[in-house]
């Protein structure tokens, strides 16, 4: 029953074998013959982040959750030794890199005309933000965000770009959004950058 794929006014009784094999063919043509994980062989695709993780060998945050800790935010130098991690999904064009140090996650991204970063909502734990701004520029070109990742977390962070809005006034629009959630029962933290 669980798998009944129906919704709205339409229901699917079954799958078309022709279509199933079509997608398996597409799957065989993966970039650089990268190792395809066991999930992929069953015909289930991996969303962006996990796919990339499987390909690069970088640890996926979701599959290796941090230990339950309450430590202070790592000092600047500590981040240098932090381990790169892959997020559940990264679809922004902001070229983000994620690292873990103890239970702290840090995400550094580059994107044009960044004006602000803010928390829209968070269940707990303060986030730390920094904008990377050249002294000659009005706006920033990089952003770093760090927050603790603990069971029970839910958090939404919005990164804003400066725009020239109507009548030459300046405005702001969403550049990308970082979402974190880790509910009891989840394999690990789900972090998306979109």
């Amino acid at each position, binding site marked *: *029953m*669980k798998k*009944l*794929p*129906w*919704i*709205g*006014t*339409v*229901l*699917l*009784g*079954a*799958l*078309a074998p022709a*279509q*199933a094999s079509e997608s398996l063919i*597409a799957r065989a043509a993966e*970039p650089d013959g990268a190792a395809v994980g066991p999930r992929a062989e069953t*015909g*289930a*695709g991996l*969303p*962006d982040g996990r796919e*990339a993780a499987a*390909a690069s060998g970088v640890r996926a945050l979701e599959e290796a959750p941090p230990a339950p800790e309450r430590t202070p935010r790592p000092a600047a130098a500590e981040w240098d030794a932090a381990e790169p991690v892959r997020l*559940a999904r990264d*679809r*922004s064009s902001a070229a983000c890199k994620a690292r873990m140090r103890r239970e702290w996650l840090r995400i550094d991204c580059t994107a044009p005309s*960044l*004006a*602000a*970063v*803010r*928390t*829209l*909502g*968070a269940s707990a734990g*303060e986030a730390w*933000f920094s*904008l990377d701004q050249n002294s000659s520029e*009005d*706006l920033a070109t990089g952003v770093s965000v760090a927050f603790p990742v603990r069971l029970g977390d*839910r*958090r*939404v962070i*919005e990164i804003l770009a*400066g725009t020239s809005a109507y009548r030459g006034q300046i405005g*702001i*629009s*969403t550049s*990308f*959004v970082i*979402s974190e*959630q880790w*509910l009891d*029962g*989840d394999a690990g933290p789900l972090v*998306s950058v*979109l």
Partner: protein
Amino acid sequence: MRAPQDDALYLADEDHRALRRIPLPVDVSAPPIAIAMPGRPAQVLAIEGRVLVTIRDPGLLLVMQPDPTAGLVEVARVPLPADAWGLAITPDERTALVTSAWTGKVSAVDLATATKSWSIDVPREPRGVVVREDGAAAYITHLTSAALTRIDLRSPPQARPIALSPSPYRAPPDEPRAASLGYAAALSPDGRRLFVARHALGAIGELSWFGAASVDVLVTGNDEPLAPRRREAAPSRLARDFELDIAGDQELEAPRSELAPFVQPRALVYRESTRTLLVASEGTDALVELDALSVEPTLRPLHTYPLGSSPALAGAAPGSLDALSRDAGVATLCGAPSGVALSGDESLAWVYCRSTDTLALVRLDEHKAGVPYEPGPVPFIRLAKPPLPEQAAIGRKLFYNATDWITSGGLGCAGCHPDGRDDGHVWHEVSGGDFANFFGSADNRPMAGLAGGVARQTPMLAGRVSAEGPYGWNAQSELLAARILEGFGLHRWGMGGGADGALSLRASYLASFLREGLVPPPREDRPLTPEEKHGFALFTSEAAQCSRCHVPETEYTDRTGYPMPGLVARPGFYREKKGTVYKTPSLRFIAGTAPYYHDGSARTLEALVEQNEDRMGRTSHMSRKDKAALVAFLRTL
């Protein structure tokens, strides 16, 4: 779960009163089998060896069985409260749960005996229904309210509201928005998250007039919203020298992403392999894919699949339905998508497009690094000829459409008049020098200093538009088409416009659809009870005078405007201009259109009669019993 010999897609075609069976794989050249239904079917669900279908009027659950020649044959029919709509089964497949939209009930059907086990009352317009993984409870979504209903499936069953405010970051911290259009919900495969697609009425954002589209997530472990509360003065960091005063500016404090990546969400599916959600966007003729791993999936949609028109139809013959549709700015390939199903490998979505009577086959983005999605032509099947004459058939497309700039600024008629009914919302009509617009809340402001507006509750249209006129709460439009034209200006931010010919053509198409295509809600045909008879006598009595204005022969209205003495402006709204008159509204179907009055100030019919005193007709002389009888009669209309 499927029977291997039953590789088929089933589709409930409400407008043709038919269930369609489409063999898989879909063969674009083979016509699907249509099975006639005893009434308009709303939803269909296939389980081991059986196909279940809800029928709106008469309210039924049909149990069917695949049959090699007929496609499907009926094996049982279970009478249910009228307007049976949403459908789900418990994990043990023993019980089906059905929502009855108009009658406001949820029923359980024992599938072994094909009998109704129970029905219980829930708030207005229950639509979507989803059963928890543990089978202990069901969640119900409503078209006219933000709260869900949870029904604990024990005996006796128990219903209670579950708060889930729509688009929480687009509302002030302690003022959750109202929601409408809660047609659909879906559980994550592990059952721990429930996704609900809706409209957040009056949500805050730039140029926001009706609000925002929203998929809100409920954590089923504790029935709490997934999104953490919005924090006042949320921590933030600004670029050095960036001079914009964000704090205190509601619009700048709200997320600055697109307000409505989809419009009029009609259906929702979870795509397990990519952990994404697919929303059928009725108003924009598109399928929209969202990240199911995000706390607020609507903030950043992953993919939009536009389905409205096929380039091949650009050369449609002059005067053909396709050419006329194109001229009216509406879909030719897939209009008003209202159902979605996924292929077994989830590489393909089948989308049922109601206003074009088509089935679109949408190849989905694989969401894999290094596998970019190449858009291509969307194959489709035409399922049937339009069920209405040409004028009304184009009117039907316009009614659901939210993209034609001449008819609206981004919201179709069905966005406020779903099913030709009402959204239960009181809109703020704000007028400036040369415009008048509807706003979802007093927080949506056309310009500084202008907020609030006069209260205008959405009226029901189905079954109430046969008279020539006048129309509008203030009897301001002589003819139906004139009120529709007025609406083209109201349903947007700022001024609309278009050539007179283009405007009036659309208004006449829509008027045809309103009269020929909208289906009035079901009404029980039975003799009045003694109490209702007493109510009728009171209603028509000289002492009460109700029938003087609410004339029974003409849909219970005289269509005349009257001043309403003693009206006080509701909080958040302006006071009405002196001398404003209100048209006697039709009382047909009044039981199902709460709240009441142009400003929604009476929450129930009981409250309306109780507080009336002698403002409208006379009720102050009536006993408690009389008043109850009067209300009982009103409910039969």
